[in-house]
């Protein structure tokens, strides 16, 4: 390649990242020596056993928790805390119960000082994108779990982040809603040209959505493995290569 392709934004680099907590007076190493390179516009899934530090890694990437050691770089610049080029979607929707769907989705823009009318018109676009066009003026208590989570996703998309961090966003949903939402997330990722870092327990979800899967080990300091998901998109769960890939990922967990 002689022609440099246009620089894509939303590149994430993690170098020698360590993070520990003090729990009952004892030091608890959660992350040690993490290395990670995510290209702009890539979709990366993070899997690993419960308690291995996936949420912690995501919170450090979001800037909610400072790292003890090492660095996180976004497009080559070291991050200092929370930044507007990143948005995080938590496991719970975390909607404000006193705001309507429209109020919640435009919330992110409004706290950044975008005029209300503009914030709402942009929010409307993403409300339609997640399929809630008819529920603009509903309050959170009037929504189902899946709808509430979609509102949370729309709220994060509305601020048009370069990097979208998701912590098991579909974990609490029933199997059917989950399937639909996985397909929707795959579509949104294609349309929005955003870097996606997704923590999940669901290997199938990882294969549907990700370009690569990072397997965080339980043992601290052990090398984390990265598996390429080189399957064509949109991905077909019943296809032989998909099934083979799932078997391979399960083997990573010693599950067969």
């Amino acid at each position, binding site marked *: 390649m002689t022609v440099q392709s246009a620089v894509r934004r939303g590149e994430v680099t993690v170098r020698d990242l360590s993070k520990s907590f003090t729990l009952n007076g004892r030091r608890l190493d959660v992350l040690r020596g993490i290395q990670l390179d995510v290209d702009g516009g890539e979709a990366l899934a993070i899997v690993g056993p419960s308690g291995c530090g996936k949420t912690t890694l995501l919170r450090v990437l979001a800037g909610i928790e400072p790292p003890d050691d090492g660095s996180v770089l976004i497009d080559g610049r070291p991050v200092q805390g*929370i*930044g*507007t080029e990143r948005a995080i979607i938590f496991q719970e929707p*975390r909607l404000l*119960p*006193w705001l309507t769907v429209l109020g919640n989705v435009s*919330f992110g823009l409004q706290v950044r000082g975008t005029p209300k009318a503009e914030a709402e018109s942009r929010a409307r676009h993403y409300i339609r994108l997640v399929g809630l066009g008819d529920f603009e003026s509903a309050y959170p208590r009037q929504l189902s779990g899946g709808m509430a989570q979609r509102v949370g996703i729309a709220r994060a998309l509305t*601020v048009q982040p370069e990097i979208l961090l998701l912590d098991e966003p579909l974990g609490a949903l029933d199997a059917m809603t989950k399937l639909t939402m996985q397909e929707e997330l795959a579509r949104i990722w294609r349309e929005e040209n955003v870097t996606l870092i997704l923590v999940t327990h669901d290997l199938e979800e990882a294969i549907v959505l990700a370009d690569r899967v990072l397997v965080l080990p339980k043992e601290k300091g052990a090398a984390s493995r990265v598996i390429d998901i080189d399957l064509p998109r949109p991905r077909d769960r019943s296809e032989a290569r998909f099934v083979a890939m799932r078997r391979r990922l399960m083997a990573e967990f010693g599950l067969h």
Partner: protein
Amino acid sequence: MVSLDTTSLAIRSQAGTAGALLGRSTAVVGQTARRYGLLAGFLLAWQIGSTYGWINPTVFPPLDRILAATWSGVAGGALIDDVAISLQRSGLAFAAAVGLGVPLGLFMGQIRSVEQALDPILQFFRQTSALALYPVFILLLGLGEASKVFVIFWATLFPILLATIGGVKEVDRKLIEMAATFGASRSTIFRKVVLPASVPSIFVGLRLSATTALLLLIAAEMIGANKGLGFQVMNAQYNFQIPQMFAAILLLALLGLSANAALVALQRRLCRWDDAAR
């Protein structure tokens, strides 16, 4: 066969509509009866019992005489001054308690160290009955308006303050964190998350305080006052004007009911999103 079926269906559906209408109106009547039946029965028993002398009419005069006394007191203007001064005392004290209690509570709830330092003294003051302190306030402020307003203010301040602090402290940390990830500043988080989330608890405090305000108003007016509804209750009793006494009691009850109704209406408006408020 077919046409017959449709007619009978039509008739049946008409009957169904009429039945539903009837059903609905009986439901409304039934609901009203369930809600106010007991009160109506109580008032009726009073009226009849007093008229026929089954209960002592000198202590419990018939309701029509109480209503007549109320009407002449209000229409003749004799009681209007008392209502006005009572409203002024309790209103002033309540407004001052809200004006100080809500902002102070919002501040204290936000800052842990301030709250922790002030909590023991607050609990101590709260447990000290305002009525027990009334003589102290009289010593300090004299027997005039100031000590009356102050004792009501004192008693109403604590419910508001504690409810507001509680509301702020109970705001879901996860919502605050969510707002922070969108880049919200501390003051934006306060305005857009902490404040609205605390409104339901603040209202709990306001309603409690409104009740307390009337309670203390009556007590304060029974001691060394020469105007006000509480004074009228005492005064009428001394002079054995029993219907007038009940007239003042009735006006006090109406005052309490309307204060509560106003707060409930305001709460409904502000907390449409809150299940507990509906």
